[in-house]
C-alpha cells in the first residue's frame, strides 16, 4: 500500500468505503512510513485552516421584482404596432386597405417581429418597464384596436380605393385572431421581463465597480 497514495488520501478525507477503511487501518497499524505520511497530511490540513478571507460586504445589487401591473398605455409603440402587424399578417392577408391603414398607423412596423429574435432591447422599454399583462389589459387593448379600426373605416369612406368591406374583413380577422393576439402579447410580456431583468443585471454590474 505504501506506493498507492489514493487509499490514504481517501482515508484522510473520510471518504473510504468500510472495506477500504479497514484495509487502510490494518496497514497503518503495521507501517510507520504511512503513519508518518498521514500525520504530515493532517498537519498540512490544519495549517490550511489559518488562511483567512477578509470580511467583505455584499457585492450584489439585488434584482428588484418587476412591477406587478401596468396599463396598456405603458406599452411602447412598437409593441402596439407589432400586435397590429400580427393581426393583419394572420387575418387580413395582403389587403391593400390593411397595408394602407397599417402604414398610416404604424409606419415603422417590422412584420417579422413576432418571430422574436429581432426584438432585442427596444429603446422605449428603458423608460417603460413592462410587467404582467392581465386579461383586462388585453380587453382594453383589443377594444382600442377595434375602435381605431372602426374610426379608420368611417374615415375610409372618404378615401378612394378603400371600401368598408375591407375593414369589415379586418374586424372579422381581428376577432378570429384574438388568441393569436393573446399569445403574442404574452410573448411580448415575457421578452419585456427579460429585457428589464437584463437591464437590472447590467446596472447591477456597473453599480458595484
Amino acid at each position, binding site marked *: 500500500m505504501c506506493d498507492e497514495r489514493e487509499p490514504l488520501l481517501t482515508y484522510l478525507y473520510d471518504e473510504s468505503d468500510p472495506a477500504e477503511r479497514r484495509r487502510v487501518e490494518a496497514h497503518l497499524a503495521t507501517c510507520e512510513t504511512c503513519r508518518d505520511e498521514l500525520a504530515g497530511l493532517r498537519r498540512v490540513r490544519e495549517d490550511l485552516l489559518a*488562511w483567512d478571507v477578509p470580511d467583505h460586504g455584499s457585492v*450584489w445589487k439585488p434584482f428588484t421584482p418587476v412591477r406587478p401591473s401596468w396599463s396598456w398605455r405603458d406599452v411602447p409603440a412598437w409593441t402596439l404596432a407589432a400586435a397590429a402587424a400580427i393581426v393583419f399578417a394572420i387575418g387580413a392577408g395582403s389587403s391593400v386597405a390593411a397595408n394602407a391603414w397599417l402604414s398610416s398607423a404604424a409606419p415603422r412596423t417590422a412584420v417579422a417581429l413576432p418571430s422574436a429574435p429581432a426584438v432585442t432591447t427596444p429603446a422605449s422599454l428603458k423608460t417603460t418597464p413592462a410587467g404582467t399583462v392581465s386579461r383586462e389589459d388585453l380587453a382594453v387593448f383589443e377594444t382600442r384596436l377595434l375602435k381605431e379600426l372602426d374610426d379608420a373605416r368611417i374615415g375610409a369612406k372618404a378615401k378612394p380605393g378603400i371600401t368598408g368591406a375591407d375593414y369589415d374583413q379586418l374586424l372579422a380577422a381581428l376577432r378570429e385572431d384574438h388568441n393569436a393576439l393573446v399569445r403574442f402579447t404574452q410573448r411580448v410580456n415575457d421578452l419585456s421581463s427579460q429585457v428589464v431583468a437584463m437591464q437590472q443585471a447590467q446596472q447591477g454590474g456597473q453599480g458595484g465597480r
Partner: protein
Amino acid sequence: MAPTNGSDEELVARATAGDLESFNQLVARWERPIYALAFRTLGREEDARDVVQEAFLRAFRGLRGFKGQAKFSSWLYRITLNLCRDWIRRERRAPIVPTPAGTDPNTFADEQVAPNVSVEELVGRRQMSEAVAQAMAELPDEQRTAILLKEYHGLTFQEIADTLQCPLSTVKTRLYQGLSVLRRRLERRQSEQASLRRATWEKA
C-alpha cells in the same frame, strides 16, 4: 430580504421561470463561498469582487441552459473558476499573494479577537495565514483549485470531478501532489523560523 427557503434546485426552477427574488436568494446563499473561492484564487479583494459579480450575472444569464445535470453549486463554482482562469490569463501573471499586513500590533486594533488571544498569537496566526497564501499561490493552478474545493468548500472527490469535468483519479492525484508540496514548504518555513528564534535567543 425575505427568508431563504427551498433547495437550490427549487430556487433555480423559480428563478428560471422569472422569479427574480429567488435568484436574489441564491446569491445570498452562495455569495460568501464564491467570494472566498475567487479571493483565494486571485489574491486580491477588488478582483474577487469583480469575479463574484460577473459569476452571478453569468449564472443568471445561463439559468435556462443549466439542466441540473450537476449540483447548482458545482455549476456556480465552475463558472467562477473559469472567470478566475480568464482573469489570470488576461493579466498574464500568477495569483497575487495578499499584501503582508506586517507585524505591527496596532493593525489588529479593530480585529475581532477572543479576549484570551494574545497579540503574539494573533501575529502568529496572521503570519501563518500569509504563509499558506504564499505557498498556495506558488502551486500549479490545477493543484491549487483541487485543494481549494476540498479544504475550504468541503466538496467530495466526485463533486470536484464534476466541477472540474475531469476524472476522479485526476482529482486525487492533483490533491495529493498539491498537499505534498504544501507540506514541504510549510515544514521548511517552520524549521527556518525555529532556527531564527534560536539565533535571536542565543544573541540576547
